[in-house]
């Protein structure tokens, strides 16, 4: 067997090393690991394996500080997705992942393949995907690219999820000039699997066949992981060819074929080919099992002629999986994939060598040690600056409202608070026929019944970047707390979270400080609320021409409601019911620092974000859940962006009925009362409030009578009634009008 190709190392110039995104030190380490200079194929492999995207080299040190365990956790971080127990022998499998850089360059395909990638992470583990969510950030509405990017991303998410037949049930959309040059597209999938039939990526059994299934490999997405690990500049849009193209039809077939094969005993290990494609999947599987691999790259199904080993190892073509099969089960597996008209190829076998040996028509063209690449990738303790928490802003330093109704109409019709109906009506949010009526988009949590049971999974994605920018620690906490509240407000018990850490360039100490602070706050909150982080993704270098995004540590929360019949939504349920404010205290009331009232009405971004009292969050959340599952509450909504009166208006609009508030005394500062964003608070309605009030008093939780539902307006003290029709026109109007306008 010839090994002449391994000697082709003279083509590795410093320029070539730099083009592959490796520093001089990293290249020196690569040579040391190899015991020689790598050839171009081997260099390409180092490049993607050690990219920030695949290696987490800047964030690893901090990610290790997050809580990842609990009695409900079946699998924490480190696999394709996290797994938690949901009872009745079932498990929820979930993860969130970013596709930020590709979506900015080519919004439809970037977003579509983001959905495809996260779906594969979940069904790779043996789970049928049952819900998709997302978290999207765009630039200022008036920025010339925003409309095009929003339209493309939404169409891409819908185009993929709708065709695959997994409902897209929840998410969030924000606008801010900080995302003008770097939008964020984070996609989350939740799946359900038998708890004792979870599939992992750890390769085992020397001699076992390594099998490639799914789509053929093309030239798309080469160096996608490297692109996602660098800042943007003016030339970045020339990288369009590195964005992959999605094929949701093939993904649908791949889901069905994989789940059919998973019902047999044929699979030893399985891994999807995501970022860094065949390289990453083969190295990770081998490394986890302490195995070696021999691959015959000429056997890889190829989409076009003339492809090279380098391209095959680095392609990020979509809808592909790699698996290790039990010996003798190859023909069973082949018959299933042929039934579904998918490619199936035995491309190699496991060895005990601990090395990755790559052959091309019999010739060895690459030979690398596996563990040093997969495990010993660099880990950096990047410097982070110290920053002082901003001083709180007193309500007395903020002008009060002159017209409560007009201000509410303006806020509800603003880009960040208006209805997202234009978005979610383009997503099939009901396919699979398990999306609960109370858990459709537009409420707090998405709620999907676990097929064939009376249980439900609740999920939500949350982050308030303006809080994180002002104070990363409190912002990190708040993202976790808001997810906790969204789930609790539907009646579901939060189980665990997945996180998507979106930041700028970590080589800048002030950006690194944001990451460190957000992870710290997130960790504190997850510990206190007993919602461990079971999976996640990090997206750094979200900068263009030196301008970073706002720190955006998105939390995807997953919870369980044991009886879906007990779940409630945000819509007022009936006329004449009592309206209650549950939670909070004097100190959380009236917090206007970093509020939307301050930003969107007064044009100021000042002060500290609202503080999160984690013990109070836990106590209040538990109380609200108990009252909901006990059947005492008919509708519930947490108070977040825009404050109490915005939450009230959302409940009224959803229920198509108004309410009258009877306040014991006029607030001293109406804007603080109405628009303050103090944490830990819920609005709830009930037919008979006495039991809830007594229980709250016993639990030491504040529970105030606010008023009663009914009528066709919001009546607040002596203010002029605020008509629902006016609120609805403002709330529903902005986004369709914006999208219909031409730039």
């Amino acid at each position, binding site marked *: 067997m010839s090994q002449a190709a391994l000697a082709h190392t003279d083509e590795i110039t410093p320029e070539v090393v730099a083009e592959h995104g490796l520093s001089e030190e990293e290249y020196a380490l690569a040579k040391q690991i190899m015991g020689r200079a790598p050839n171009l194929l081997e260099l390409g492999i180092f490049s993607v394996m050690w990219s920030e995207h695949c290696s987490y080299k800047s964030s690893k040190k901090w990610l290790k500080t997050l809580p990842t365990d609990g009695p409900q956790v079946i699998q924490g971080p480190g696999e394709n997705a996290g797994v938690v127990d949901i009872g009745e022998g079932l498990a929820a499998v979930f993860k969130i992942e970013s596709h930020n850089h590709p979506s900015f360059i080519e919004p439809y395909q970037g977003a579509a393949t983001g959905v495809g990638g996260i779906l594969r992470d979940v069904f790779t583990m043996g789970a049928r995907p049952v819900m998709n969510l997302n978290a999207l950030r765009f630039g200022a509405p008036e920025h010339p690219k925003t409309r095009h990017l929003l339209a493309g991303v939404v169409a891409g998410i819908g185009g993929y999820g709708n065709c695959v037949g997994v409902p897209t049930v929840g998410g969030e959309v924000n606008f801010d000039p900080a995302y003008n040059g770097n939008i964020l597209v984070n996609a989350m999938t939740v799946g359900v699997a038998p708890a004792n039939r979870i599939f992992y990526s750890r390769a085992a059994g020397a001699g076992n066949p390594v099998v490639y299934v799914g789509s053929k490999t093309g030239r798309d997405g080469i160096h996608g992981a490297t692109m996602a690990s660098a800042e943007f500049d003016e030339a970045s849009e020339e990288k369009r060819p590195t964005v992959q193209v999605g094929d949701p*039809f093939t993904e649908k077939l791949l889901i069905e074929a994989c789940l059919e094969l998973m019902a047999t005993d044929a699979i030893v290990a399985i891994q999807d080919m995501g970022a860094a494609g065949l390289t990453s999947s083969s190295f990770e599987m081998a490394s986890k099992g302490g195995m070696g691999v021999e691959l015959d790259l000429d056997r890889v199904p190829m989409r076009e002629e003339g492809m090279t080993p380098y391209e095959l190892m680095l392609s990020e073509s979509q809808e592909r999986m790699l698996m290790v099969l039990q010996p003798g089960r190859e023909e069973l597996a082949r018959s299933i994939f042929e*039934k579904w008209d998918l490619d199936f190829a035995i491309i190699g076998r496991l060895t005990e060598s601990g090395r990755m040996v790559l052959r091309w028509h019999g010739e060895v063209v690459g030979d690398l040690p596996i563990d040093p690449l997969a495990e010993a990738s660099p880990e950096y303790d990047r410097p982070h600056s110290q920053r002082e928490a901003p001083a709180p802003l007193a309500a007395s330093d903020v002008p009060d409202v002159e017209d409560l109704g007009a201000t509410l109409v303006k806020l509800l019709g603003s880009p960040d608070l208006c209805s997202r109906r234009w978005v979610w009506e383009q997503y099939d949010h009901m396919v699979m026929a398990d999306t609960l009526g109370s858990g459709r988009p537009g409420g707090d949590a998405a709620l999907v019944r676990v097929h064939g049971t009376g249980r439900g999974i609740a999920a939500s994605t949350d982050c308030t970047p303006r809080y994180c920018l002002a104070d990363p620690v409190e912002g990190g906490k708040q993202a976790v707390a808001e997810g906790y509240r969204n789930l609790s407000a539907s009646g579901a018990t939060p189980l665990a979270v997945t996180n998507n850490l979106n930041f700028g360039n970590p080589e800048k100490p002030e950006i690194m400080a944001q990451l460190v602070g957000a992870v710290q706050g997130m960790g504190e909150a997850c510990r206190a609320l007993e919602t461990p982080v079971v999976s996640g993704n990090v997206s750094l270098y979200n900068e263009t021409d030196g301008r970073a995004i706002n720190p955006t540590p998105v939390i995807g929360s997953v919870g369980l409601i044991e009886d879906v019949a007990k779940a409630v939504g945000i819509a007022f349920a009936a006329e004449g019911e009592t309206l209650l404010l549950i939670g909070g205290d004097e100190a959380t009331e009236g917090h206007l620092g970093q509020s939307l009232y301050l930003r969107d009405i007064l044009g100021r971004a000042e002060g500290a974000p609202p503080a999160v009292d984690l013990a109070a969050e836990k106590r209040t959340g538990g109380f609200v859940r108990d009252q909901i599952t006990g059947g005492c509450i008919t509708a519930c909504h947490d108070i977040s962006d825009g404050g109490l009166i915005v939450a009230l208006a959302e409940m009224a609009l959803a229920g198509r009925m108004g309410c009258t508030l009877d306040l014991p005394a006029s607030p001293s500062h109406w804007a603080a009362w109405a628009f303050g964003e103090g944490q830990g608070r819920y609005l709830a309605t009930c037919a008979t409030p006495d039991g809830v009030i007594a229980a709250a008093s016993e639990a030491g939780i504040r529970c105030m009578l606010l008023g009663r539902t009914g009528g066709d307006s919001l009546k607040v003290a002596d203010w002029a009634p605020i008509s629902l029709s006016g609120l609805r026109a403002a709330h529903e109007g902005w986004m369709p009008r914006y999208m219909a306008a031409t730039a």
Partner: protein
Amino acid sequence: MGLRSAVIVFPGSNCDRDVAVALEQSTGQAPAMVWHKESDFPEVDLMVLPGGFSYGDYLRCGAMAVHSPVTREVKRRAEAGVPTLGICNGFQVLTEMGLLPGALLRNADLDFVCRDVHLRVENTQTLFTHRYASDQPIRIPVAHHDGNYYADETTLDALADNGQIAFRYVDEEGEVTSGANPNGSLKNIAGVFNASKTVLGLMPHPERLSDPQLGGNDGRPLFDGLVEALQ
């Protein structure tokens, strides 16, 4: 013996399980799931073509499914009078097969649309619709990119004259308005019958609101009505 039904599964069908659940709920027995590569399947009282994206719908929606081995058999039986229901993509396939008149074009605003719509039942004297009242709008969801019903004027007139219009999009009060039309369909048509009323195609998804927990139950009378009529 309960109603025997079959769901025809194409590659890319994704509402096959949903309609199977609704059928089982009404008939008391699981339908036969018939893979598109089958050229024959057991005798049944009802055939259902489910929603989804057969063959990815990369070509004209439903166009590829016409060439599946199973399709010839479905067409033979439907023409022999076996009741046949096509929902969403299934409706598109039935028009491509020539079992139903007209065509489903891209939505007028070009966007995919998923929302609850109100429908007026235009003909309540059929196997499929006899459990509905003509003066009571029903609410079930649509979810499609290509639901814009088109037929030439002569065909539209004939459909109206022969009672072949099954459902029309209406507002909550039951009025046919342009605002109630989610996709630009001519005459607000949401579903049509063949001449003998044994084949029904509709864009909305009755199987998705056949369970009060999901937010409504207006789809269920269609399935219950079929059981009653066909037993």
